[in-house]
């Protein structure tokens, strides 16, 4: 298996899933092609300016930045539906349309869900 697609469709912070997906994607970078695909509520992860200090949990946008070599693609229709199109987004991500998102899934040897 040479490539893995991590699919995150859960919002950050409300659940450990986003943190779990980021960590799993990060450890897979050594030796595999890794894509983290954000879909549905998962797209909330890319809003810039997250500050989770007072919540006492890891800052997930900082983690995104610290793995700059991780390819993160964001399903643009999900982003638009959620009213995020006008928001400032984390810079290291890639907005893609539905076709490109599905194609990235198809081009990976495996898909892991969060």
């Amino acid at each position, binding site marked *: 298996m040479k490539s893995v697609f991590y699919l995150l469709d859960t919002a950050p912070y409300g659940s450990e899933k986003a943190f779990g997906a980021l960590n*799993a994607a990060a450890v*897979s970078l050594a030796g595999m092609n890794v894509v983290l695909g954000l879909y549905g509520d998962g797209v909330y992860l890319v809003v810039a300016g997250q500050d989770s200090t007072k919540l006492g949990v890891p800052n997930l946008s900082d983690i995104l930045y610290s793995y700059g070599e991780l390819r993160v693609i964001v399903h643009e229709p999900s982003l638009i539906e959620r009213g995020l199109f006008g928001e400032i987004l984390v810079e290291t991500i890639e907005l893609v349309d539905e076709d490109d998102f599905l194609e990235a899934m198809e081009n990976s040897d495996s898909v*892991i869900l969060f």
Partner: protein
Amino acid sequence: MKTLTIVLTDGPYISEYAEIACKLAEEALKQYQVNIFLYLDAVHIPKKGQNPSFFTNAGELFTGLAEKGAVIRACARCAAARGYTAEEDTLKGSNCEDYLPGIKISSLYELSEMLKKSDKVISLSR
């Protein structure tokens, strides 16, 4: 021999995925190498002493899979958060005294190693 890896993220009873993983693994073990990685709440699956009156005992299913040769590993961070500690010694194939035999706590890097060596991956998650 081909290898199948199953990735789980949910605990037992609240979802059926532990049982489905077991059915998949049972069939696959007849011909293939099977790895199972327990992540997030799935680290609860191998806990000793489960006594579900109305459901199948998930822990027993998994220790049975380990006996048949499945490699079952639980994420160390997720396990520690939930009160399962990895010891230095391994007893009956496990390095956690709260776990059933044959199932070990290991680093998340083990997931990556399992994936690299796999022909196919099945991910079950709520």
